């Protein structure tokens, strides 16, 4: 199988999953026990009968399920994910689009940091297996990997914000001091707010990457070509980076894709504890308000993003490792 055929195959798989996510997103609010209408458009007192009928019509809720599905699909094409119940009549898409850049900023930075730190420590640890440095690294990684991220967040806030006043307690910027915009003070303010959430998220994410790289290095070091490299008289540094690390990093690429679940869960909880204004905090607010369309829409956006990220990771992996394409 060539690379092109492989991409087409992954593309078809991804499309099928995409369709299933769409169906799931349609069916869940309609098939759960209870009244779907009140879940989808709410039952607020201040809503007039005309408004209610207009909403029912807009989502086709007066029609049978299969016709509703067509209405739903047409809505999706326009980017219509329903109306927020707690911020009525703001569309769900608008609520979520406000949070998305904040989430991407937080998750992107932490993931990249976690991959870099995890990989470097993994290489060092694997190379020095069994030595003090390795044991200490391993203990720290296992500990952070097991700790709930929101609790790490609470510890960080407690020490660095409440006790020492070095960093702000919550939010992504201080609206009372600086106006959002592309000014230096605003950027610095956001950076100051970013530090603690990024530390928390990076701490729980790097462990997985570290463990897989470490194992992979240990396994690679038993290969014959490492022995050959040693026999050739290459120095440690050359063997480690040119021979061992290169081959050991392959499994780490696919592992990053598997970890997406952990990243998503970690991000939702980190945002909540830091009141970071991204999708996670929006979900938390929606849970408190029982704003079902927003939770449903957030799930949809996250599922689609994860699916895309997976597809990209698959292609990168297929490109890097020919065995995948032909296997």
């Amino acid at each position, binding site marked *: 199988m060539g690379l092109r055929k492989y991409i087409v195959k992954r593309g078809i798989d991804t499309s099928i999953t995409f369709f299933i996510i769409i169906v799931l997103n349609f069916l869940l609010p309609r098939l759960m026990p209870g009244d779907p209408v009140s879940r989808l458009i709410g039952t607020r007192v201040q809503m007039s009968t005309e408004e209610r009928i207009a909403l029912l019509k807009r989502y086709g809720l007066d029609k049978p399920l299969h016709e509703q599905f067509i209405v739903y699909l047409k809505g999706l094409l326009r980017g219509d994910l329903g109306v927020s119940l707690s911020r009525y009549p703001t569309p769900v898409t608008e609520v979520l689009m406000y949070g998305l850049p904040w989430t991407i900023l937080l998750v992107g930075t932490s993931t990249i940091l976690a991959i870099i730190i995890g990989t470097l420590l993994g290489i060092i640890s694997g190379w020095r297996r069994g030595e003090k440095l390795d044991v200490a690294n391993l203990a720290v990684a296992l500990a952070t990997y097991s700790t709930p991220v929101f609790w790490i967040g609470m510890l960080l806030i407690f020490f660095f914000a409440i006790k020492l006043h070095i960093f702000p307690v919550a939010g992504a910027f201080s609206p009372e001091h600086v106006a959002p915009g592309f000014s230096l003070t605003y950027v610095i303010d956001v950076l100051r707010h970013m530090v603690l959430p990024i530390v928390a998220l990076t701490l729980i994410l790097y462990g997985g990457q570290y463990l897989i790289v470490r194992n992979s290095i240990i396994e690679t070091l038993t290969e014959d070509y490492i022995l050959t490299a040693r026999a050739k008289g290459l120095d440690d540094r050359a063997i480690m980076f040119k021979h061992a690390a290169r081959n050991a990093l392959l499994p780490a690429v696919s592992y990053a894709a598997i970890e997406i*679940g952990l990243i998503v869960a970690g991000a939702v909880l980190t945002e909540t504890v830091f009141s970071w204004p991204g999708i996670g905090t929006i979900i938390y607010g929606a849970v408190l308000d029982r704003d079902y369309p927003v939770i449903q829409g957030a*799930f949809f956006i996250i599922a689609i993003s994860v699916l895309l990220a997976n597809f990209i990771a698959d292609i990168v992996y297929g490109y890097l490792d020919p065995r995948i394409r032909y296997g």
Partner: protein
Amino acid sequence: MKKLLGPRRTAVLKKRIKNFWYLYKSNKMGMIGLSILLFFIFIAVFAHYIAPYDPYEFSLDVNAPPSWKHPLGTNDAGQDIFSELIYGTRISLLVGFLAAFVSTFIGGSIGILAGYFKKLDGILMRITDIFLVIPSFPLMILLAAYLGPSINTVILVIGILSWPYTARVIRSQVLSLRERTFVESAKVIGASDFYILRAYILPNVMPLLFANMVLNVSGAIVSEAGLAFLGLSDVTYKSWGMILYFARIRGGFIRGAYWWWVPPGLCIATVVLAFTLVGYALDEILNPRLRKR
């Protein structure tokens, strides 16, 4: 046939367990994990006798810092945190075990069916791969929100969304078991699929299923804590995650009442670490490829 094999099989099983324990004992990390787990299980079982107070009982001693009377202080309703923590052990572990049982059962069944029956393999693994890609935690949040906060909902939601990894691992094990000679010879003498599954496949995947269940328990405890922290668990069952949730929304955290929120987080981290250590140790023993070279 079953009667004939019966006593011999129990003897084999006994020997296997003995061998297994011999290998496990020499795994230092595994033993540390196991001791921690046994300690917490002991607390969970005997919570009634250990806890000095009823964790749901209000008192006038509100927001008290740690003292001889209340070793870990009290919360805003005057409830004893130390007692909450002890009863929380029971709830967190119980939710973890039950949810892990559900997910291991589903994942194990799907893995065995997919691995053994070639016709089912394609479709079952398709479904598994789809579930692997769909982010489970947001879906748990969504389902828990729709179904309303109840402890059963939380257990079920975590259980039915955490099985795909187990299914994959078990499937690959069954795939290799199916090709072994003892399965082939059973087929030749006319044993039914059901008999082969029960007599040969199931006993051989049991250890791996068990190892997976251990890892699933720690995953379930983390998920429960996360759901509870978002206010999606049952407020009448104060798990460790629930104590953290209360400490945050009732202002204990922002007021600096460290005795309220530090211990439950520490407990979650310790127990999850212990499960991870045990899980890795089991994996190392059951996967001879991983044993130390």
